[in-house]
């Protein structure tokens, strides 16, 4: 039995009622087909109205759905010959981030991503997909390997955040993420990042610097978990719903802001309703994007990446007022952002 979300309840109840009527028809031989048809039509309308206009908070619930496809599902579904590689070579292996090499569309790639579990036991092993510094360091080790061997990099992001524990702090959680940001910025290898579920703050960004950012339709990406924002703003973590609505964290918001490059549609009702279809959609999108990026000389990628991130932010006053909507038109070229001529030349 699938795990149902609270806002789906009216629909579930209606469907149970239909089942009941159908059984009644069969057992008692009384024809209820007209009633069944009416109710089925009603259920379709109801489903439509629930899933077409999901609130940000409902999307957060879908993004956290325990049956949502995980990073390993995507890797296994999209790639052949996956070889998992372990360890950061400094301290230990971190099962909250998985990584390795695989074959995608016939060529070798490096994959890394946060990994959640399906049940309590698995989640304890995976630390609920919340990585320690060693996880980020393992990811960076594998990504540097990708650069060395000329492989593109695919990162899957689905984490509530980096793990906030005493050991994580002692071993430099901040430093580990910071190192990933600055080193990923300079990698001479194509990087495609996909937020598949939760994009939780710095812990997500630690695998999220790349040439393209894709996001699933009901995924969210936020500077702070909605519950934590509520705790800070209104001293009440149960106001997560209110915070989620105020913070513009959906894929649609981020697409409007020009931060996400592509929003990938999910099967009706969410990725967990048809994981195979979801994986096909992601695979097709990655296939197109990677082909595009692999045509760019690797040395130019950090320069283009710089331009991409340079445009992000909303700043008033000074020489130019900048709003996100302006970006698509003028390319967001700030006077200070102009490339050095010799750097720009190397692009051609």
């Amino acid at each position: 039995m699938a795990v149902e979300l609270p806002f789906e309840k009216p629909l579930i109840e209606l469907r149970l009622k239909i089942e009941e009527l159908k059984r009644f028809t069969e057992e008692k031989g009384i024809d209820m087909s007209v009633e069944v048809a009416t109710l089925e039509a009603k259920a379709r309308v109801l489903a439509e109205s629930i899933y077409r206009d999901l609130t940000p908070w409902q999307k957060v619930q879908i993004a956290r759905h325990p049956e949502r496809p995980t990073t390993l599902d995507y890797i296994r579904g999209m790639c052949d010959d996956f070889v998992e590689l372990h360890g950061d070579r400094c301290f230990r292996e971190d099962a909250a981030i998985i990584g390795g090499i695989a074959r995608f569309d016939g060529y070798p790639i490096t994959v890394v991503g946060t990994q959640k579990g399906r049940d309590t036991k698995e989640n304890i092993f995976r630390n609920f997909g919340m990585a320690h510094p060693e996880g980020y360091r393992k990811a960076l080790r594998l990504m540097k390997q990708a650069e060395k061997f000329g492989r593109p990099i695919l990162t899957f992001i689905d984490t509530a955040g980096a793990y906030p524990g005493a050991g994580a702090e002692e071993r430099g959680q901040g430093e580990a993420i910071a190192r990933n940001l600055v080193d990923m910025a300079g990698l001479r290898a194509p990087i495609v990042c996909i937020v598949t579920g939760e994009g939780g703050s710095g812990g997500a960004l630690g695998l999220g610097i790349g040439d393209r950012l894709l996001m699933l339709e009901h995924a969210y990406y936020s500077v702070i978990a909605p519950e934590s924002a509520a705790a800070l703003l209104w001293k009440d973590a149960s106001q997560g719903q209110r915070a989620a609505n105020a913070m513009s964290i959906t894929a649609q918001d981020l697409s409007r802001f020009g931060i996400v490059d592509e929003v990938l549609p999910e099967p009706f009702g969410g990725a967990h309703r048809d994981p195979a279809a979801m994986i096909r959609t992601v695979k097709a999108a990655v296939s197109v994007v990677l082909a595009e990026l692999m045509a760019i000389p690797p040395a130019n990628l950090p320069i283009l990446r710089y331009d991409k991130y340079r445009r992000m932010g909303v700043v008033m006053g000074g020489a130019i007022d900048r709003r996100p909507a302006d970006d698509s038109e003028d390319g967001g070229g700030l006077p200070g952002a102009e490339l050095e001529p010799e750097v720009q030349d190397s692009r051609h």
Partner: protein
Amino acid sequence: MLKDLFPKKRRYATVAPHPGARDKVPEGLIEKCKRCGQILLGKELEKHLKTCPHCGYHFTLTAPERIQITLDEGTFEEFDADLTPGDPLLFPDYPSRVAKAQEATGLKEGVVTGRGTICGNPVVVGVMDSRFIMGSMGSVVGEKLVRAVEAAVGAGLPVVFFTVSGGARMQEGIFSLMQMAKISTALARLSEAGLLYIAVLTNPTTGGVTASFAMQGDIHLAEPGATIGFAGRRIIEPLIRQKLPDEFQTAEFVLEHGMLDQVVHRKDMRALLATVLSLHPQGGETVGCRTAL
């Protein structure tokens, strides 16, 4: 109450202070040390660069104060002083919080950037100010720091950033998070250009700032006792269900765990920066340095 039957004998007459008396001490005349409780005269505190002469506690400095004690007098040229935050998410109360912070600080945003010299060594600096919405990082903080790095790359100068921040600014949502990425890409370019970047971490440096430019320096310095960490103690303690030791996430703790190069008393910071700058190609010659004390 039984206690009321046996009133305590008063041995002295007590005089209640005049209700307005407290307000009559002019601001800045005296200050109480937050660690040892000593009462310090404003002038005395000033002389010690706002550190407690008894216990060494480092009071928080504003960005203008930091610039004044760090750079050579009259050498500071500010960049982009007029940039001010937008409200991209139309977040409840954000514009009024910004306005309040602007009024309280006289600054347009929580970071001051520019160039100047430290004991004759030319340098680009960025100094955060914790009075501005807890020194949080939004689009303008990111933009100003990136422009400062770009100026440094253009002029071949080293960069020193002084951090004090509660992390990414919630009210600008994903834009704040993306400033971490933006500054990181700029610092990658600075590094590529072979230029020095020194991060000086002051109390407190946490969250998204720790997870980006505070920890991306060639050299990491910190002031004694500064709180430095990613996740705050208030988040960790309930999670692990135990109280963390007092020294957890202090500069000294972070030094011991290998994330810092040195913990440096404020009175020695300027001279050390000058020495480090002079040991790097773009530092120029050190032309003598006034000692702070």
